[in-house]
């Protein structure tokens, strides 16, 4: 066990993937000498060379489009998109090509491409640096979409994503990059919890709180606060946003009878809406209250001086919990 930041855990995971498979490449803007703007790829170019850790021209569509070409050639590229709001120039390559090529080829083509995206707000950044675009990708067939919440999981999750034969959009909670956790670097990705399985991070019996990425920590805080009020909240870290682990989710909600979904993204047409629909379909007779959502406003991400209002915090999560108990 070592105690490292989430950024370091990801770095160690990437290093392990580069060591394990010579076909793994890292590509993106500033990922080489600089080590990425968040230093996630720090030191990797020095150790693995410029042809495996590639500083690319500054064009996101080009990064993903050439990664597809490299994958067609048998490589396993890991692309870094510098910030969430910069992924849209690559959106067409991701949606029209990366997600659909296997289907188009009737299974002949395999594209093991990982696209890492630091996402979410809370760092006081300027526009386009705090977004949560995961629903756009979860809505796209052919992609796997995951979000890590902390270092212990991220170390193996990034390796599992790289080993996946499907394209993976890998969301990293940027405001948690500097938070420390104990990681066990002896764990093999093959032995770790599979990428598409949710993890129950706090057991409870009265309400199921579903969260992912940066909101898992908020959810755990809310559960602790609720416990003081005598409410037992089960917190589940979804980890996989597409596909959703409905087995774990539904089993929990059937026990608790109440469900709140929390994410930073706008609730309108967001992932919470999909989860609410599925929970309602699968657990209708077990529900004591409608599935409630707490998330960002149906607005563009606001200037950072307003982000504490936009981002769901402990109190807003607890407010939703209170409402769930009001039925």
């Amino acid at each position, binding site marked *: 066990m070592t105690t490292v930041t989430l950024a370091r855990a990801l770095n160690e995971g990437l290093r392990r993937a580069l060591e394990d498979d010579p076909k793994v490449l890292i590509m993106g803007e500033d990922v080489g000498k600089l080590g990425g703007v968040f230093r996630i790829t720090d030191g990797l170019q020095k150790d693995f060379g410029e042809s495996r850790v590639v500083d690319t021209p500054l064009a996101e*569509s*080009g990064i993903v*489009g050439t990664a597809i070409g490299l994958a067609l*050639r048998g*490589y396993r590229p890991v692309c870094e998109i510098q910030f969430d709001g910069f992924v849209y120039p690559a959106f067409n390559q991701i949606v029209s090509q990366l997600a659909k090529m*296997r289907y188009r080829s*009737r299974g002949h083509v395999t594209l093991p491409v990982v696209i890492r995206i630091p996402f979410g707000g809370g760092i006081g950044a300027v526009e386009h640096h705090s977004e949560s675009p995961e629903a756009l990708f979860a809505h796209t067939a052919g992609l796997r979409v995951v979000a890590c919440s902390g270092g212990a999981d991220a170390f193996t999750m990034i390796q599992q994503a790289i080993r996946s034969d*499907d394209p993976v959009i890998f969301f990293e909670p940027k405001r948690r990059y500097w938070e420390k956790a104990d990681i066990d670097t002896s764990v093999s990705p093959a032995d770790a919890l599979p990428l598409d399985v949710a993890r129950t991070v706090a057991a409870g019996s009265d309400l199921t709180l579903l969260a992912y990425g940066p909101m898992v920590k908020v959810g755990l805080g809310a559960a602790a606060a609720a416990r003081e009020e005598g409410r037992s909240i089960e917190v589940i870290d979804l980890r996989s946003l597409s596909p959703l682990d409905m087995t774990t989710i539904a089993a929990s909600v059937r026990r608790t009878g109440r469900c709140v979904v929390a994410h930073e993204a706008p609730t309108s047409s967001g992932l919470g809406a999909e989860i609410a629909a599925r929970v309602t379909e699968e657990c209708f007779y077990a529900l004591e209250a409608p599935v409630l959502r707490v998330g960002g406003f149906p607005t563009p991400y606001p200037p950072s001086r307003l982000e504490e209002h936009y981002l769901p915090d402990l109190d807003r999560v607890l407010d939703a919990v209170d409402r769930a108990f009001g039925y």
Partner: protein
Amino acid sequence: MSVDTGGSPAAREVMPPSGPETPTRPITPSGPANPGSPGPASAGTAAPPLASAPAAAAGLPPEAGTPEELIQLLTPEGQRVDHPDYPLDIPADELRGLYRDLVLVRRLDTEAIALQRQGELGIWASLLGQEAAQIGSGRALQPQDMAFPTYREHGVAWCRGVDPLKLLELFRGVSHGGWDPDEHKFHLYTIVIGNQTLHAAGYAMGIQRDGATGDGGEAVIAYFGDGATSQGDVNESFIWASVFNAPVVFFCQNNQWAISEPLERQSRIPLYQRARGFGFPGLRVDGNDVLACLAVTRAALRAAREGQGPTMIEAFTYRMGAHTTTDDPTRYRLASDLEAWKLRDPIERVKAYLVRSGAAGTGFFDEVDAEADRLGGWLREACRAMPDPSPLSAFEHVYAGPHPVIDAEREAYAAYLDSFDDSGPGGPGGPGPAEAASVPSAAQARGTGGFERTGEAQ
């Protein structure tokens, strides 16, 4: 402002002089007026092209460029001409082979258009007029080379050994392509304009990492059209290929039209001159001259293999048909242009040369025509016999690994289909009245039969 054309001396002469122009001022053409060109550029109108060469290469319109600019080895009259940079000594059997390719892919195209008109295909993108560009470049490829096509490269697909029925499958709506790109070293058709050029650049970077360049090594060719040169992806692929010196040839078939938009809407300079701005050579070839396309592509692929980086080839040609079978080109272009281009037919000139050089006689041409007839008959028959895919195949090959959401929905849809009784009065595959009554909305949504009944009732 200094303008470096990067073109031939002849092209440079017609460029605007360097002078005290401000960067924001539109560049105005100098030199001989381009016949029929619009007046000075203003908002919403097409700016005239910058280069309008006075002396065109043999048999081509002035905008095709001077003989120095445009590489030609076989004139529209079937006259063999030499080019100092592209000597080509082609054996008679290879020449006959090219003729056969040209004739057969034109027949494939003709049959496909007819099949669309008969309702057997949903749509077809015709290659008519572009046979030489596709066969010349396609036959320049070595077996190990990789090609990235648009959706119109039926001639290149032919050269790469892709079953023509696979192409018909796509346009019939039976599949999205579905051939194995690795087996043929021919990627899937790409429909979103220009996307494949980045895949080609990335693939070429993979060749570099595999150390597979050099003598007997691999190269990549990326196909795209004149319209695609306006796409960001194409420009990004030029940058990637250039800065990484990737072994890729950018083969642009300038067929003058992007559906209804003429070349002037895409570019103010000849397209091949764009390459210079990206730092690699660009050249223009008579795209209706199969020999020139072959020689130029071979040379560019060789340069790529040898580590000299990318080349852009602009094959100057003309889309003789509609953009696709849904298009009506009489709404936007002149019949006289088409007539002029008919005189530059890519097949007739090869036939004339074969006859003139004594490399082929009537027997050979009759044999190729008979082969084309056999191909046509087979295509018609096989296309009509092509079965629809099974409904549940829609759920296949979305992911490599298991996916619970898809599995669940496939099972649910299978159960839904099974709920209809094949032995009922509705007949196989359709709901009978009993089922229709019990699940009216489903029955109505299920097919034309249910829908029509609903319509009558109203």
